[in-house]
């Protein structure tokens, strides 16, 4: 029987095609927003979590310079770290070890070709080598790791070795870094991160060729197992404040852990989500009111038909059902198109993210979501139709027939 009501309702909708389409727009936009929002934010969340889990959650990066805005911005931007800062970090409770590499862009020559390559000059004490190895900072594919006795040697990133130069750089080749001759002792494996485009050399020779006696570009701390990364990051902040003699809130350095980054990214996406949910809610509300309006008009236009149906045996409940199904179907059709459009937008946005940032955002529409969105839009439509449908069902047959 319910199938007959759907058939009758569909004829009612089809009769006023233009008005029905216009009515659908509100619901359509709302469902589009909700679907694209949920699929995209889920995909982004997954992608971001994936990126950070690659980096590892037991690390803290300390970079010189505070926030790049505010009254003290000029002063803090020029701040630098030295070995003492690295030692301060190393002494904080819960820190397993801390490394302070010197980071520069170096001009590198190989067989007559010169390229600018990001260069990390790492400490190469046996302890530092252990940290680099154990935490996967340098993951050798070909060749070998640094030794404490190494001097003019380099470990190349995957891209450095295979793509940067016309000729492939192999282990054992000689390259010129800032006019000093270096022997390539190892090539890193492909990681999918910035490590692919970065080259490593020992810190001592780095200080020599870049003429930097003291500076440490950033400090990289490994947190001991069993300690909360966030809490230790706070302690590091405190210790560095004391060491560098700055007040809280005026730090000339920034402490970041992947977790903290993840949290701030999550916070941003949450704000975006809240705004979009707001837009979606308003759109859905307006859509619902639109459906209600259309249904009221429809009831007024079809008063006579309602009278005829009542004369031929339609109960109040049958009329109520007929109009509820009709308004529910308006919502449902809006939902179907909204679902398709929302999925399309998510796919497009995912592709843009892939092309622009190389982040793979997997956009997934689950069956639960399809059913949920369709059920929601049908119920929403039906609810919007409750008052008009009740008005229709309460019409007096004689009055209705007189129209």
């Amino acid at each position: 029987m319910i199938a007959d009501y759907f058939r009758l309702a569909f004829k009612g909708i089809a009769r006023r095609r233009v008005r029905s389409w216009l009515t659908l727009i509100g619901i359509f936009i709302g469902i589009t927003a909700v679907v694209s929002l949920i699929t995209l934010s889920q995909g982004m969340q997954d992608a971001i979590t994936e990126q950070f889990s690659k980096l590892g959650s037991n690390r803290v990066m300390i970079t010189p310079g505070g926030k790049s805005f505010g009254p003290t911005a000029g002063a803090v931007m020029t701040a630098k770290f030295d070995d003492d800062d690295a030692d301060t970090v190393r002494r904080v409770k819960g820190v397993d070890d801390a490394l302070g590499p010197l980071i520069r862009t170096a001009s590198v020559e190989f067989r007559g070709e010169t390229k600018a390559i990001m260069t990390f000059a790492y400490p190469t004490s046996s302890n530092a080598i252990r940290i680099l190895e154990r935490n996967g900072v340098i993951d050798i594919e070909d060749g070998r790791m640094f030794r404490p006795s190494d001097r003019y040697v380099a470990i190349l990133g995957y891209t450095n070795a295979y793509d940067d130069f016309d000729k492939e750089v192999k282990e054992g080749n000689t390259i010129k870094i800032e006019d000093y001759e270096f022997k390539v002792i190892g090539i890193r494996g492909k990681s999918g991160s910035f490590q692919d485009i970065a080259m490593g050399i020992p810190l001592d020779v780095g200080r020599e060729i870049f003429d930097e006696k003291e500076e440490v570009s950033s400090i990289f701390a490994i947190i001991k197992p069993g300690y909360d990364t966030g809490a230790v990051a706070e302690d590091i902040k405190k210790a560095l404040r004391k060491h560098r003699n700055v007040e809280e809130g005026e730090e000339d350095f920034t402490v970041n852990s992947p977790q903290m980054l993840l949290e701030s990214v999550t916070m941003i996406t949450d704000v975006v989500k809240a705004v979009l949910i707001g837009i979606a809610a308003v759109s859905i509300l307006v859509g619902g009111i639109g459906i209600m309006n259309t249904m009221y008009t429809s009831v007024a236009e079809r008063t006579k038909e309602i009278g005829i149906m009542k004369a031929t045996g339609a109960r109040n409940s049958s009329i109520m059902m007929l109009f509820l199904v009709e308004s529910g179907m308006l919502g449902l059709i809006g939902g179907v198109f909204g679902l398709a459009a929302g999925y399309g937008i998510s796919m497009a946005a995912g592709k843009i993210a892939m092309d622009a940032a190389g982040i793979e955002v997997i956009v997934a529409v689950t069956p639960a979501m399809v059913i949920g969105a369709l059920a929601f839009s049908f119920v929403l439509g039906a609810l919007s139709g409750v008052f008009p449908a009740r008005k229709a069902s309460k019409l007096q047959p004689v009055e209705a027939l007189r129209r």
Partner: protein
Amino acid sequence: MKKPIIELKDVWKIYRMGETDVEALKGISISINEDEFASIQGPSGSGKSTLMHLVGCLDLPTKGHVFLDGHDISKLTESQLATIRGKRIGFVFQAFNLIPTLTAMENVMLPMIFNNVSRWKREKTATELLMEMGLKERMNHKPNQLSGGEQQRVAIARALANDPEVILADEPTGNLDSTTGKHIMDLIRHLSKEHKKTIIMVTHDPYIASFAKKKVVIVDGKVGHDHEYLKKILWKSNHEDKKGNPKGGKK
């Protein structure tokens, strides 16, 4: 001895129009037997349409009782009245009153949907009825693709859909030319004779009323008895408009 299927006992219908009460029916008592073909005649404003609505369970009397098959409908709920309308009464209206978006077939099936008849049975019954009405070629046409006579035949088929005992026809030929009207009246007589339906027909046209066996005349909300007076009234209503000008000419 045939038993009455419809009985009205001292039925009053009073409408409230603003501050004043309008008495549409003033104590009408009528009895119509099973299988009878009755006409209700009266000038416009006489209350015959109101009477029709009460008999058709579309409305309830202000005072008095309406009995259908011995049961007082004045005490029924809207839902029960709807069931009676669907199962026991078939309506034929002056303006045909088909649903414009539905085909002839779907219009005939509509009362059966509300009466929870299976799809298969609905299609079978509707096809048979439309064929009986001579509309075999017209089943999938919409009302606006049908002539007036064809639309009224679809309406008659619809009235028969749930095989009701009573057919109520309200000016069934009012919107048709005389030839088509005659054809429709032949069909209605056919319902009376072959289908053994009780027919109650409202009309102001004495020729149309002449098809009926029993004639009831309503004047000013009462059943009329003075035949000379009634003839005059009816002649007047047929040949003059409300201002007393002769009919025709303008229309």
